[in-house]
């Protein structure tokens, strides 16, 4: 028998339906062998067989993110918001999850801020993990970011990002922010 064939699976499902409808035992003669009951074992450990889905990494570069005059600057032209979005899709079963957000900063800010929102989670069956990281040039050190686990759809705002130190009068440090998400069926 080919256990992996579609036909095999269909036959088993058909047998389940027969059992559920009482068809399996119907018509059995006295002392005839019988199936007394049929059911399906649970799939609590689906995480072991469900493929995880990761979205492509989103990266943003910041010019002059460190010292901009005497402050730090993140965001488009040191102002405004960089928007980003991405999708992660799991396999078996296929399900898509979205990540949207933005990076805020301004010339008067001492650091940048990341906002992010995750949707597509059907609790308690999936979980998404979003990682915000970064690096800095010009001798500066990146701090902030973090890893955030979503068991429900939701948002996290005001995630600090910062390039500390480095730079000089003529060359301020640059920074790169990376955001990625991995979703898993539970």
């Amino acid at each position, binding site marked *: 028998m080919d256990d992996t064939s579609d036909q095999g699976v269909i036959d*088993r499902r058909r*047998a389940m339906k027969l059992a559920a409808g009482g068809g399996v035992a119907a018509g059995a003669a006295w002392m*005839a*062998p019988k*199936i007394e009951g*049929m*059911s*399906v074992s649970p*799939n609590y450990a689906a995480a072991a067989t469900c493929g995880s889905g990761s979205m492509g990494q989103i990266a943003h570069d910041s010019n002059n993110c460190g010292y901009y005059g005497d402050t730090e600057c993140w965001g488009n032209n040191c102002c405004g918001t960089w928007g980003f979005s991405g999708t992660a899709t799991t396999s078996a079963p296929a399900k898509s999850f979205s990540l949207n957000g933005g990076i805020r900063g301004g010339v008067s800010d001492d650091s940048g801020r990341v906002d992010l929102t995750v949707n597509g989670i059907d609790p*308690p069956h999936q979980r998404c993990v979003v990682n915000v990281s970064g690096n800095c040039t010009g001798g500066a050190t990146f701090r902030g970011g973090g890893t955030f686990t979503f068991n429900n759809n939701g948002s996290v705002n005001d995630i600090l990002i910062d390039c500390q130190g480095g730079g000089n009068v003529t060359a301020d440090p640059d920074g790169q922010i990376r955001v990625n998400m991995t979703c898993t069926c539970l």
Partner: protein
Amino acid sequence: VAELRRAFPDLRARGRSEPVDEVVALQAADVDGRPWERRNRATPGWVIAHERGESLGLVRLDEVAGFLLSVLTDRLLAIEPGFAHVHAGVASIDDRAIVVPGPSGAGKTTLALRLAREGALLTDEMAAIDRGAGRLRSAPRPVSLKWQGHLAFGDAVDASRRPADSAGWWIPPDELGTTQVDETGPGVVALTERRPGAPALVPATRAEALVALLESSFDVARDPVGVMDDLAWLAASSGAVRIAYEEAADAAPLLIDHLRAGGPDGHLEEMGPPGANSRVDPEALSVILDGRAVIHHPGSQAIVRLDPAGTAVWRSLVAGVHPGGTDVEFVQQLRDAGLIGVGGDE
């Protein structure tokens, strides 16, 4: 923080797991007001739970207790791979278990708590089966009492402390008139059915108990062979009873009387690997309990229970012996369920 301190007085897994100890550390430190970090200024009320610098999750304030317990459950399943875990409420009476397997919302907590008033509570959610020691185990934890469930406990529950927008809340067992133990011996498996009217208790077969345990297993998909062995041991070491009831308070005395009446252990026949000429699918796992076969096919997730005549046929098929005079329709049903191979000359 006050609710956490009340709900988690002793969240630990018998000192046998570092990961759970880390959760305890997180909880304990949170009481001191340190590592639980509120970072979402735009949506007050969300908490990011940190554990040694790593984010564990994003949860609402009123879901923190449930979140911690889900972390505990995940960790226990991960760190106790040698144990089968069953989704069940379990009370311990005279150091013997009354196991009530079932899905969420079936009334496990209410019945287990009511039973535990005559003894102690092992768990309202998940029990680990330690076959080597012949015991059932669980980590002490608060119980999850749903709104309708609290009505069974009258004044024992302060309804004013119910979270505003939650279906239930977490309460230490001692506030509900019982104590909690972390292990007990096997006793009886109770198959429950909610229906109006007076409670009715009838004997069940141990094969039915094993099926109910398989249907409530947390890890049968991860380790079908080991879990089958553990659950078959528990079913064979326990009595089996079916009870229909409306109110847990009425069902509990009947179950306790049945437990105390006792009875000999069941006869468990371990099935060896299929014989050389067997037509049985090699993936099919089976045991025979008190003369009835219970078969689990991990690939199709089918659980099949046979009557004694069907069990005799199954025994022959496993051994590779032609059963002779077998009902053709029965064999076809086994084949349809994926339990025997296609093309065999059964």
